[in-house]
């Protein structure tokens, strides 16, 4: 996929990074005295490109950075934000840690489970939503809180939850 020269890859051909990702990797590497330090940022990029860190994506990162695949895998599996399987288009992450739970986070998760027809940890059949329960998001003064992809939604009430889902469905 995405060979830098734009040609169409053949069946069974190793993956490559897109030109955009390759440019980002080139900008990343000089920031560190050792190439291995770019591993987490590059895994993050790879997850963005391919949706999940499957075996062939791990191989791609391993080849690109010259790090043995076992080491790449050890790092990839340690971090919760590096997805091992694809997540939905909208990743809804609800904080249920202490401050949020005092203000009804459990209710937020249950409501989302009902509205989306899935349990926490699952993805809707249409691939639109993944619902996750997560640890403190660092926004406890605006509890209850959830994140949808890169955006915080704070001080959640019934209307806010409905509105956020509607916006996701529209856009």
């Amino acid at each position: 996929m995405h060979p830098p020269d734009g040609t169409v890859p053949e069946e069974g051909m190793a993956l490559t990074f897109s030109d955009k990702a390759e440019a980002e990797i080139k900008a990343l590497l000089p920031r560190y005295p050792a190439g291995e330090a770019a591993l987490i940022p590059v895994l993050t990029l790879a997850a963005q490109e391919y949706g999940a860190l499957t075996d062939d994506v791990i191989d791609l990162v391993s080849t690109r950075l010259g790090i043995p695949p076992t080491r790449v895998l050890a790092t990839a599996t340690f971090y919760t934000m590096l997805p091992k399987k694809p997540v939905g288009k909208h990743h809804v992450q609800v904080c249920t840690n202490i401050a949020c739970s005092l203000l009804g986070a459990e209710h937020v998760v249950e409501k989302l489970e009902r509205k989306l027809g899935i349990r926490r940890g699952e993805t809707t059949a249409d691939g639109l939503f993944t619902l996750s329960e997560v640890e403190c998001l660092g926004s406890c003064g605006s509890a209850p809180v959830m994140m949808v992809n890169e955006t915080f939604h704070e001080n959640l009430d019934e209307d806010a939850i409905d509105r956020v889902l509607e916006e996701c469905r529209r856009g």
Partner: protein
Amino acid sequence: MDRIFTRDWDKPQGHLLSVYEEAGGYGALKKALSMTREAVMGEVKAGNLRGRGGAGFPAGVKWGFMAKDDGGPRYLCINADEGEPGTFKDRYIMERSPHLMLEGAAITSFAINAHACYIYIRGEFYSAARRVREAIDEAVKAGHLGKNIHGSGFDLDIHVHMGAGAYVCGEESALIESIEGKPGKPRSRPPFPAAVGLFNRPTIVNNVETIAAVPSIIERGGAWYAALGTPGNGGTKLYCVSGHVKKPGIFELPMGTPLREIIFTHAGGMRGAAPLKAVIPGGSSTPVLTPQEIDVKMDFDGLKAVGSMLGSAATVVFDDTACMVRSLARLAHFYAHESCGQCTPCREGTHWMAKIVDRIESGKGRAGDIDLLDDVASSIMGNTICPLGDAAAMPVSGFLKKFRVEFEEHVTTGRCRFPPQALAPVKTDRAWV
């Protein structure tokens, strides 16, 4: 009172370099560059600036531990992992006053003679990272960062490094491992990072708030800064208040402000008719306090004196609708989930604790479970590579000590009498005061 962190937070474009410069921004850096490294360190020591990441170690003293300069690379890492449940101040500093942190980073790097600084920002903080990256670009263009800063001959590159979801990476040696591209497993010490740190070179790790306090100390002097707080606890502090209060948020107040005043004056008191039941004073790992204990001064020494800790000053307030067993269960699961698994007491113990608290909470607690829980907690304490083990054990011991009756009631009656918490967001117009 002088506001150090929150000064520009009310300004609509307060994060921009132009606003920061208008208020005298980067003046402290220019001043520091005209001083000796020892003099800069001396002011910070005199200011009694204690680390705001949780442990309260004096910043100037830590910098003094940096291994002797052998001409090789030396690093500053800024800890912006902000994962301790209850804590939400560093994100605000980065989003609203990124230049305050960057100026502090430049002064600190000069003091320890580091030419590269990595800001380790937790993976979920996309908008904060964006702000910080934009601010770095602005500062480089203006000559506050980069090569030959203000003609001093001092060079500094600052890089943003994003985490990828692991609370333990907030621990300084795990943070270093993580920047190196490895799983975030804490290192055993010694050696300490100041001797052997990032890329095996001398390294200082400081919290965002610690670093952001530095420009004010250089600008107005260590004596001025020290006088803002209490003896041994200099400056102002960002207190994060969450839970069952009328006005949760961030409050910049002098170090040592009484906890009662923080809750009942600044955070507006309890949100409803239910009275105060408990307070976690400094983040989820700090031992819980009862309503009788809130006349404590919120600084490192005041909380130590009552058997708790200031930690990250993340105050979580519970009214008497909260079930303490359920609350502890939530915390126990957090630590079990976040243990890196390197030490047996932490890996096994955190899971046992979560299981036992769950059992008690669901009404299936057995006689002896409470003592068993207490035993597991004490066998973790002090027996692990990093303080996450202690951080998991301390809330357990604390909850059992202060609220044992509630645990006993769950075991004897076989049920929980507290209904689930209703959805009750607090609508505040802004998150700081």
